[in-house]
């Protein structure tokens, strides 16, 4: 490498990076490409890298059940997102702006709850929800998936609110704004990009959830896409083209969000996961 000049080195690095990315992202390609194959090509002993006969059949077969599961996924993801934002954005702001007593405990609550997995609370939440009679309703998955986003969003937004110049709010308060309008009219607009990123994360977390939805909502009419695809796999385990077609539809929102706001997502991911 040493005898290469800077330009050649740059080209070489780019080529290596592209190759690495192609290998790494191969599973993603594989999902998409197999969703366009016919049954007999899927069953062929030697897999093909590109569909011999490009077909939308696998998608057409899914359309019937999709209207229900898609609606469920959207309701659950949006409901969970709205609930999580209503609670966590003010909390992040409060933790950044007010020197309240016990602040460290509050931050700890979020840090710890963020680490605890769904499988830990599945049994008790199931028993509690069954007592409340909200199994097989949208409440159960919305309430439970919000617990994934809330700590993440709090930890992700707090640094942003901390870095915001306090003078702006002070000036607003002098102009007669109270604490709440200072939050809504000053702080929120300034941190808008981060809050939107946070919204995307909450949406994706709820959209991706399998454990909660699968456990609390067993009725077919209440099932979101994640648990529908899992049930589908159990019934038609070898119809990989149909499974992959379903998979493509399931990854679309994540991919869309990712492509449109990649930079914010990457930043949010690091701060939401680590910093207190």
């Amino acid at each position: 490498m040493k005898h290469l000049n800077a330009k050649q080195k740059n080209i070489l690095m780019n080529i290596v990076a592209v190759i690495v990315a192609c290998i790494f992202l191969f599973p993603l390609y594989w999902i998409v490409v197999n969703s366009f194959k016919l049954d007999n090509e899927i069953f062929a002993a030697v897999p093909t890298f590109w569909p011999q006969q490009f077909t939308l059949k696998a998608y057409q077969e899914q359309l019937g059940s999709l209207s229900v599961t898609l609606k469920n996924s959207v309701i659950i993801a949006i409901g969970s997102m709205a609930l999580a934002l209503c609670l966590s954005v003010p909390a992040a702001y409060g933790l950044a702006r007010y020197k309240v007593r016990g602040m460290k405990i509050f931050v700890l609550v979020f840090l710890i709850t963020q680490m605890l997995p769904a499988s830990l609370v599945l049994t008790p939440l199931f028993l509690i929800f069954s007592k409340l009679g909200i199994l097989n309703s949208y409440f159960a998955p919305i309430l439970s998936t919000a617990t994934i986003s809330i700590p993440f969003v709090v930890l992700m937004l707090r640094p942003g609110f901390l870095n915001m110049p306090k003078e702006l709010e002070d000036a607003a308060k002098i102009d007669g704004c109270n604490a709440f309008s200072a939050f809504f009219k000053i702080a929120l607009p300034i941190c808008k990009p981060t809050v939107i990123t946070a919204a995307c994360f909450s949406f994706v977390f709820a959209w991706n959830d399998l454990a909660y939805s699968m456990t609390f909502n067993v009725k077919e009419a209440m099932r979101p896409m994640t648990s529908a695809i899992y049930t589908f796999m159990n019934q038609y385990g070898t119809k990989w083209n149909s499974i992959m077609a379903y998979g493509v539809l399931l990854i679309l929102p994540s991919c869309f969000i990712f492509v449109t706001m990649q930079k914010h997502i990457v930043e949010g991911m690091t701060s939401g996961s680590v910093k207190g």
Partner: protein
Amino acid sequence: MKRSLAVLTALAMTAGTLIGCGGSADTPAAEQPAQEQPAKEEQAPQAESTDTETAEAENSGAEGRTEITFWHYMSEDKEGKFVNEAVEEFNNSQDEIFVNAQYLPRAELMKQYTIGVVSGELPDCGMVDNPDHNSYASMGVFEDITDLYNSWDEANFMEGSINSCYYDGKLYGLPWGNNCLGLFYNKEMLDAAGVEVPTTWSELEAACEKLTTDSCKGLAISAIGNEEGTFQYMPWLLSSGGSVMDLTSEGSKESMTYLYNLIEKGYVSRECVNWTQADAEKQFAAGQAAMMINGPWQFSGLANDAPDLDYGVAKVPKADDGDYASVLGGENVAICTGANVEASWTFLTWITSKEKSQEICKSIGRFSPRADVNVQEMFEGDPLNSVFAEVMPNAQSRGPSPDWPEISAAIYTAQQEVFTGQKDVDTAMADAQAKIDAISQK
């Protein structure tokens, strides 16, 4: 470190105080999302009654009629559509009762019955796989219908089938449809390889050897870790003189060793431990397997997946020194605890009546369990169904035992352990027998 510990203790205490008012703390929390986001409020009430509402939308003639729910596990793209047709026919045949048929995958259905006992979310009536019937009856999922049955003038079922509905001397359901297993074979492939339809285990192995190629296995079976795996294993077990109650006998071990050899030699795909019977059908339909073990309910699937496939059906090959054996599969219908018994009974006696039983069973690939329906006669001249019709009368039932699900788990686990090479046949069978012994001593 010390500080974090102190904080955590405080945290644990805060959580602790919550238990005290647990009951009251739950309720407001549950209402929270409705207050937080008005958009959701509109959807939520709709959410709780989605099932009935969608069903109503499809059939607007439900007003003023007694509505009952019927659960089944026949998937909508296959036999399920015939179930729906039958239900629709019933709904149109009278104007007192309206039945909502609801499909749930088999595993979900089982879970729902179990949890439904306490959560109170049981349907009015539903379908149950016959080996599981006893177990659910013992849990109190179903209503005792002994008296209703005794006063029914069409009460005439085959002994093996109606027996699966009895628990503790009381009747908890009615047989709906029977099935059993056979050997499906791809005529073209057998002809090309110059192979006769195998009738014994040695012949089957020899045939597999000739039929197996790089892209095609000789035989497809399902050895999945659930009831289907046990169901598929039973004909082999019984044919070599083995028994569920004596898995360590020579005959029992012989059957397991035989199947394991087929896999080891590459005649049967190792993936069979993940395959359901529907997957085996897909393999056969796609020409990935020259033969498969499966049942008459696959006819509709095969017609759909491979309309041009020329195939035949024979009995499951017998052990070289044994007899043909088959196992009774099928579904019962039952009325759930606390349901509308009267309306459900009317519906169930309609679908299991002599006339309807013949029709419905034929369309869903089952055989009528009624003693007054002669299935041999019915399918005379039908080269496919007649094979199953011939096997049917001698098919042995699983159980009946309230512990069958656990016994079955011991059997399919042993099968999976052997097929995936985790245990040898002797150990796996001995372990399974030990589990079954422990269950029966309970």
